[in-house]
């Protein structure tokens, strides 16, 4: 079976092809889309997706040595995301499915992330405790089967990735904040500053807004006596990152105690962070659980996870009509 995946929910346009269970290609616009196709394109816009999608699909087919006629399953992100951006990839996929008379599978972007561990050779085993950390989302959940996902907690304010970006800005590092904080933090002392970790009434929820404000206050207090020195910046980055790691790991540990799971998976763009990866691996090892963290190329937004999730749904017997609407907000009939 040949499956094409199309992703356009946010900034990235991505096209991937899975052939008989093997990922043939996974093109992501920020890396694989070249100027020759259409000149300079704005970063976040529906127009940018529109300019990039056709060349990327053609390229993906060439790289996989397939033609559109060979494709059996057409999958695309239906949400959550920016509706204008979503519509580009989603409508494109529907058009392909209609004209080629192929099966169409709409995919929830977050479900794509949740099951992205299955893109790895060593696959997770159900039930899977999954931590989704990205620029827009922070979720803790248990995937009990491909179509049964128990949501334990979410962020009540800022997402983990957003906290990284904003703190990076506060201490004068550029965008994207995640890799920059990580690099500066490696030179600092993570125990130098005791930033707070939110105590929430709801057992598995997260909050990063208070941490962001605490960092701001700390910087304000220090800059009263002049500019921040390099070692101070390093310590702030290291201590902030450590607070995020602790906030995430605390909920993960709690969930392991209260639920029977076989594996842990860390997914989403922020799963590229080394300190968070190490912590999740440590927790998994300590509790004798299998740990599956996707390679870096599958952490950020990508269509490989969309194709994979689409095929998974199809193989679970799920069928969808071509008039299935896209959706901007986080919802899924598989969430329990």
């Amino acid at each position, binding site marked *: 079976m040949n499956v094409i995946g199309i992703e356009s929910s946010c900034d990235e346009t991505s096209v991937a092809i899975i052939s008989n269970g093997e990922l043939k290609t996974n093109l992501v616009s920020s890396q694989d889309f070249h100027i020759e196709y259409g000149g300079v394109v704005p970063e*976040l816009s529906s127009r940018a997706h529109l300019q990039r999608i056709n060349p990327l699909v053609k390229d993906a087919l060439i790289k996989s040595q397939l033609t559109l006629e060979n494709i059996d399953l057409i999958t695309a992100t239906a949400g959550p995301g920016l509706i204008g951006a979503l519509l580009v990839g989603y409508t494109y996929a529907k058009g392909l499915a209609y004209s080629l008379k192929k099966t169409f599978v709409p995919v929830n972007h977050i479900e794509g992330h949740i099951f992205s561990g299955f893109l790895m050779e060593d696959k997770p085993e159900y039930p899977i405790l999954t931590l989704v950390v990205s620029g827009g989302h922070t979720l803790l959940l248990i995937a009990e089967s491909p179509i049964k996902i128990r949501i334990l907690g979410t962020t009540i304010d800022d997402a983990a990735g957003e906290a990284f970006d904003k703190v990076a*800005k*506060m201490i004068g590092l550029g965008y994207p904040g995640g890799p920059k904080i990580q690099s500066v933090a490696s030179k600092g002392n993570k125990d130098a500053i005791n930033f707070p970790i939110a105590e929430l009434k709801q057992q598995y929820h997260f909050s990063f807004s208070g941490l962001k404000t605490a960092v701001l206050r700390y910087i304000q207090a220090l800059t009263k006596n002049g500019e921040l020195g390099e070692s101070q910046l390093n310590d702030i980055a290291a201590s902030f990152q450590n607070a995020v790691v602790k906030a995430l790991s605390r909920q993960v540990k709690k969930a392991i105690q209260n639920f029977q799971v076989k594996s842990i998976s860390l997914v989403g763009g922020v799963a590229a962070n080394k300190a968070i990866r190490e912590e999740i691996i440590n927790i998994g090892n300590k509790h004798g659980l299998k740990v599956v963290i996707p390679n870096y190329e599958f952490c950020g937004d990508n269509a490989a996870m969309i194709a994979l999730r689409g095929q998974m749904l199809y193989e679970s017997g799920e069928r969808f009509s071509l008039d299935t609407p896209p959706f901007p907000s986080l919802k899924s009939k598989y969430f329990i």
Partner: protein
Amino acid sequence: MELVLEKHIHSEDEMTEFAQNFASSLSDGAVVILNGNLGAGKTFIVKAIAKLWKIENVTSPTFALVNDYTGTKRVIHFDFYRVGEEQELYDIGFDEYLSDENAIKFIEWGELFPFILPNKRVELKIIIGDGDFRTITVFKYE
């Protein structure tokens, strides 16, 4: 432009109280701009107001650019923080969102793109002081 109010806030509870009082002054279709630095409490204010309208799940729209909620009222929550140029806002359908005459629209970091803002709007400027101290000024544009 008319200065409506200047208020000193000393705690999160006072911020919530301010937000809820402010909400009662909003008529259907209102456009509210929230200006103020990172950590000022812009999302906090929207969260507190939306709660009055039975919307419990407000999170930061920085990454998504816009979040759309429906409780007893429809709330459209924009954030211009990571928007690069005005054209991108038109591309994501800013005009269409604003055309809903009943929805209450909140725009964080509205000052980054002043020319796209509707003439009729309310602007909150939040200035961060020490600790929880904030000074909020409310301006009305007709």
